[in-house]
């Protein structure tokens, strides 16, 4: 067991720290709509200009191809600098869509999309969940009928983040008529300007508009936009989820550990008080969560259930941290402010991307080997 850094690593850290210090925007990112898009793309473009976009992507696709150790350094410094949350409207493109295209896309798809993503020129959204298929993704019913060299898509997606400001969507649909569950699905690139698409934004409980419903009425998508093989979309999608659960999580987890420090500074609780006790535990838990993050990151080989433990630990810790913030703020917790906003946003941590209940099932079944709960 060994964690150590070379002089080159230190130099890298110093470079990252200095660049972030000079370049991190002072304003808090807007939550929704066009201002959120403009802010995020401007920040990504600035990162790109300095070579900090697509840091985990391979060199050959315009990324920086950083090693896992270097990624850790970058995300540590990113969190330390209080840089804009990695979970903004560029997240899907950088952490889902891009890596999926790299893994499964055609040369044309890569050549067109990857540079635009990295340069902060296109926003992507994810079209997986449906109203009846939240935790049970494989039951989705939005379908694409093959007509000549196009898919004609009809159906309805929900919980699509940033659909209202996105250029493209990674869309999972049933393309083989009559197929069941994981079979017969395809993963396609959908241009959000296509005719027949209607986007209905959904306000969340924090007052931000991230989510939307997307309705598809005979939307025509060229077959050349299918990523991977036709009807093989589940495999492609699982690839995407694996990315989400590992690399992208680091930024969020380190961001949370910095928040705990900010909260301790804000509270300055008297020694021996109940709040000091609570904050001391949160601080220790944040340290352990970071340790889990590093171990998950450095583990080899990664498995798909690997990230479930740290993911759930993070989600519930994030909620405890923000609840403590409400108690510390006192009456001011009732008015809009960054802690209050983030507190309300934290309710999604145990819901989005697989509820805490589903995560615990995964841990019990895939990691601990307990029998699967029988579904009829």
């Amino acid at each position, binding site marked *: 067991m060994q964690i150590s850094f070379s002089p080159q690593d230190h130099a890298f850290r110093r470079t990252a720290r200095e660049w972030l210090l000079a370049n991190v925007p002072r304003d808090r990112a807007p939550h929704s709509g066009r201002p959120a898009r403009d802010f995020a793309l401007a920040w990504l473009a600035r990162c790109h200009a300095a070579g900090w976009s697509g840091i985990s992507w391979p060199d050959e696709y315009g990324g920086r191809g950083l090693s896992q150790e270097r990624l850790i350094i970058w995300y540590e410094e990113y969190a330390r600098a209080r840089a804009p949350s990695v979970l903004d409207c560029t997240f899907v493109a950088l952490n889902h869509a891009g890596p999926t295209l790299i893994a499964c896309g055609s040369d044309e798809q890569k050549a067109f999309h990857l540079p635009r993503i990295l340069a902060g020129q296109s926003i992507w959204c994810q079209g997986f*969940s449906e109203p*009846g298929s*939240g*935790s*049970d993704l494989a*039951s989705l019913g939005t379908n694409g009928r093959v007509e000549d060299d196009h898919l004609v898509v009809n159906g309805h997606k*929900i*919980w699509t983040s940033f659909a209202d400001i996105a250029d493209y969507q990674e869309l999972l649909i049933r393309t083989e008529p009559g197929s069941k569950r994981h079979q017969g699905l395809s993963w396609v690139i959908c241009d959000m300007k296509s005719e027949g698409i209607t986007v209905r934004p*959904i*306000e*969340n*409980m*924090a*007052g931000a508009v991230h*989510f939307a419903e997307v309705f598809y009425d005979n939307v025509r998508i060229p077959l050349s936009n299918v990523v991977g093989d036709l009807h093989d979309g589940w495999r492609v999608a699982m690839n995407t989820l694996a990315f989400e659960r590992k690399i992208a999580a680091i930024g969020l987890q380190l961001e949370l550990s910095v928040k705990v420090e900010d909260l301790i500074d804000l509270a300055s609780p008297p020694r021996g008080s109940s709040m000091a006790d609570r904050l001391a535990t949160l601080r220790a838990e944040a340290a352990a969560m970071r340790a889990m993050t590093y171990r998950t990151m450095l583990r080899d080989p990664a498995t798909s259930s690997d990230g479930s433990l740290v993911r759930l630990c993070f989600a519930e810790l994030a909620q405890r941290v923000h609840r403590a913030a*409400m108690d510390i703020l*006192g*009456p*001011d*917790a*009732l*008015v*809009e402010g960054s802690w*209050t*906003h983030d507190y*309300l946003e934290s*309710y*999604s941590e*145990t*819901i*989005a991307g697989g*509820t*805490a*209940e589903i995560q*615990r099932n995964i841990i019990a079944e895939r990691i601990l080997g307990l029998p699967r*709960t029988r*579904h*009829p």
Partner: protein
Amino acid sequence: MTCDLNHGEEQRQIIDAAVGMLRAHYPVARRRKGKPDDLSEAAAFGTFGLALTEEEGGAGFSLVEEALVHVLFGRHVISSGSLAMALGARLARAAGQGDLADQIIAGETFVCAGIQSGDTVLLPEPGEAEIALVFGARELELCAIDAVAVRKEATPGQGAAAHRMPRRADGMIAGSAEQPLLAIADLLVSAQLLGIAEAARDLAVTYAQVRQQFGQPIGGFQAIKHHCANMAIGAEMLSCQLDMAAIALRDEREDAGFQVAALRRLAPGIALTNARLSIQVHGGIGFSAEADAHHYLKHAHVLSRLGAAADILDLPAPLAPLSVVPERN
């Protein structure tokens, strides 16, 4: 649900009437519009004089019935102004300002809740009020709202704007640090928090019965069941303790302070927990502004800030709370 099994006929009547009034005028869905509540209908119902005698212009019910009505107010996420008016009328009358009390009871003058925050007073739901009832540390004050000095504050999500005003002695109309009034404040705040806890539970249970995943209602999954069971336990604890505290206060029993302190200690945590679990049971839709679960959560935060209960460790515990043995004489 079993929360009202011990309520008598008279209690049933006032509860049924209040349920009808609230359904007609204050459906929870109204909260989605982000407008402040108009408490006129609540006043017309007689809410704010419910426990006053008929000579005092009240309806002659007791604190027990009043508390049960405030549970229903909590279920409907009624503005905290409802608490300010119920308490403000009492405070005005105790300070010899009978006219003001009558106006409040009649819904001619509106009072909103205020919360001390350093040198300022935060008015989370100011509405049309000209007067604030400020909940301080162990005291209540009626203060005129100086429209000039007020500034707006944004509230999270869909909430109507909050106001903040400087804390100044010259606006004070009446104040009280009297134990009975403070205890009534804690009782009614807790009653509304109980209403939230119950409504959050019921919303989750109803959703779990109809929402299907993996080919069955999610209420068939043990994890969802256990969330709902936990909400039921919390609500039942609070409901029982509310009865105990309300009866003790009404009957002026010597354990009243203890019972109210116990109630007030538990109420915020249970309301917040149930609201949180209700959001979780709802999944994605629970996190959206379109479901009502988040209104319960946000309102529980507002109510939790009203009043400061006595520290329960300062009070003697009644080991035989239902009855004190009178000395033999």
